[in-house]
């Protein structure tokens, strides 16, 4: 079986993320020869320059693509927003110009993205070696009925005539000699294939790869990867290749600060209009929707252990979700669990067993109503979602 599985999954090969290697190296204060660089030198027996070039190569299913302009060391302003869990710095932005201002550097921008207040921008960095910026829905095109998924940097939408999806953008920045030496390779595995290397109107050299469409009405997914002034940009979206090229042709550097202030003012105006447009076309600004649980009033609920264990062996704890977010986890050690709901909202109740499997248990939740300090049970004091 092992051989069969390895054969079936042979395209999956593991490489440590170079950025992680640098972080580990910094933590341990040891010099560390990254695996990627060692392999490169072994295979090609090359000079340091060629090793550097190889390490910033873009690969598709283990085949390297034509070389792009090299990435360079770019110093950007640091972030203060530290995420303890992920052990890196992370911040979200309301606008692209705000991001550029805070980074302290110029970034490329597309005319087609101007006035788009729906883009979701997140910047992640270790404040030393690398920065990655993800812009979801950078260009909307003619997609419509955009709805943001609560607590996630994701949208749902309806396909337009020209755009089957919005265009997302990722920006990779290297900020240290160490990271530059290690490089920042990317390998697109799976049903991707190289399409062509395109030169945009502004002279940017772009590698274009594609992935097949999932359904008949969809356009194929194209990724366009290019490096300008040492910074790597990756565009991603479902459009015809001619439209992707048109988008690439539209990239330019933002104007100077005095001019950009005017643009900012215009952007604010168009943002307001965009908000109005969204509120009539979809539910983005009209009301919040939650996908887990049922509407419940504030109050007290009880979950009886006996009801749970009838269906779920080895139930260990109760998990409470409030408005699609984890509220609390309570061990199921007593005969019942009493939970006070401070606010009205959408509550989902689940149980986790010893094997780590999660089971929905809304059926076992009883609402308590107090009358003159006497608690009694009302089994159906909730409204169903939808």
């Amino acid at each position: 079986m092992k051989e069969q599985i390895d054969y079936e999954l042979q395209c999956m090969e593991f490489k440590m993320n170079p950025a992680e290697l640098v972080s580990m190296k910094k933590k341990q204060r040891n010099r560390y020869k990254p695996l990627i660089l060692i392999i490169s030198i072994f295979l090609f027996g090359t000079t340091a320059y060629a090793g550097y070039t190889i390490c910033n190569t873009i690969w598709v299913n283990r085949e390297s693509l034509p070389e792009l302009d090299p990435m360079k060391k770019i110093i950007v302003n640091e972030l203060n927003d530290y995420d303890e869990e992920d052990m890196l710095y992370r911040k979200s932005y309301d606008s692209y110009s705000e991001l550029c201002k805070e980074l302290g550097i110029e970034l490329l921008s597309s005319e087609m993205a101007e006035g788009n207040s729906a883009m979701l921008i997140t910047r992640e960095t270790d404040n030393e070696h690398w920065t990655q910026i993800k812009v979801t829905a950078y260009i909307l095109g003619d997609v419509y009925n955009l709805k943001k998924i609560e607590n996630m940097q994701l949208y749902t939408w309806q396909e337009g005539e020209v755009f089957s999806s919005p265009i997302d953008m990722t920006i990779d920045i290297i900020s240290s000699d160490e990271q530059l030496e290690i490089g920042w390779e990317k390998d697109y595995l799976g049903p991707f294939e190289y399409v062509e290397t395109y030169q945009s109107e502004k002279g940017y050299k772009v590698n274009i790869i594609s992935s097949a469409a999932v359904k008949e009405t969809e356009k194929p997914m194209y990724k366009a990867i290019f490096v300008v002034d040492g910074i790597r940009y990756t565009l991603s979206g479902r459009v015809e290749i001619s439209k992707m090229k048109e988008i690439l042709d539209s990239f330019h550097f933002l104007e100077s600060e005095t001019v950009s202030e005017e643009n900012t003012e215009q952007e604010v105006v168009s943002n307001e209009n965009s908000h109005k447009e969204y509120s009539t076309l979809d539910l983005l600004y009209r009301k919040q929707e939650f996908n887990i649980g049922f509407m419940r009033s504030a109050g007290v609920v009880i979950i009886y252990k006996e009801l749970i264990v009838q269906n779920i062996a080895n139930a260990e704890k109760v998990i409470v979700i409030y408005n699609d977010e984890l509220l609390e986890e309570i061990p199921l050690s007593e005969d019942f669990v009493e939970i006070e709901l401070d606010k009205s909202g959408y509550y989902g109740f689940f149980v986790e067993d010893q094997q780590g499997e999660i089971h929905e248990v809304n059926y076992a939740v009883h609402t308590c109503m107090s009358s003159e300090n006497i608690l009694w049970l009302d089994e159906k004091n909730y409204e169903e979602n939808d």
Partner: protein
Amino acid sequence: MSKNLTEDTINELVSTYGNSVLRMCYLYLKDYQLAEDVTQETFIKVYEKIDTFENKSAIKTWIMRIAINLCKNQMRTHWFKRKAMEHIPEIASEDEFDIILDKDAISLEIMKLQPKYREVILLFYYQELPVKEISYILNIKETAVLQRLRRAREQLKPSLKEIL
């Protein structure tokens, strides 16, 4: 094992176990991006905690234990996100990875199993670990491992049972 030795050690561990951990995590989580993240995190933890490895088990067993526990954490975290996406027509996804498998592929059959059966099958048949080591990794009795293996085999297609 001192820190000075870990540079070569981690290289060796990654090259020896990296692919099999990644593939095991993929079959467990059924999601390539998550599998890649978990595999990365596994070797970071190995690197950080190598000094605390007390040789109570083989290092392979230790690595697999870290990987399986991280997989379980991922499933727990992402279960709620997946639940939120159940009724949504289209999802924006930055990096897509689709493995194209033959309909008779063993990998597909394994992915159909419940997690508790999937993990014993993967550890026993793919990682080729003995029952005793699997018992340590999953923190269950050896008899429980044997029972899950038996039930997992029953759920697999007849054609696969011959292989097992």
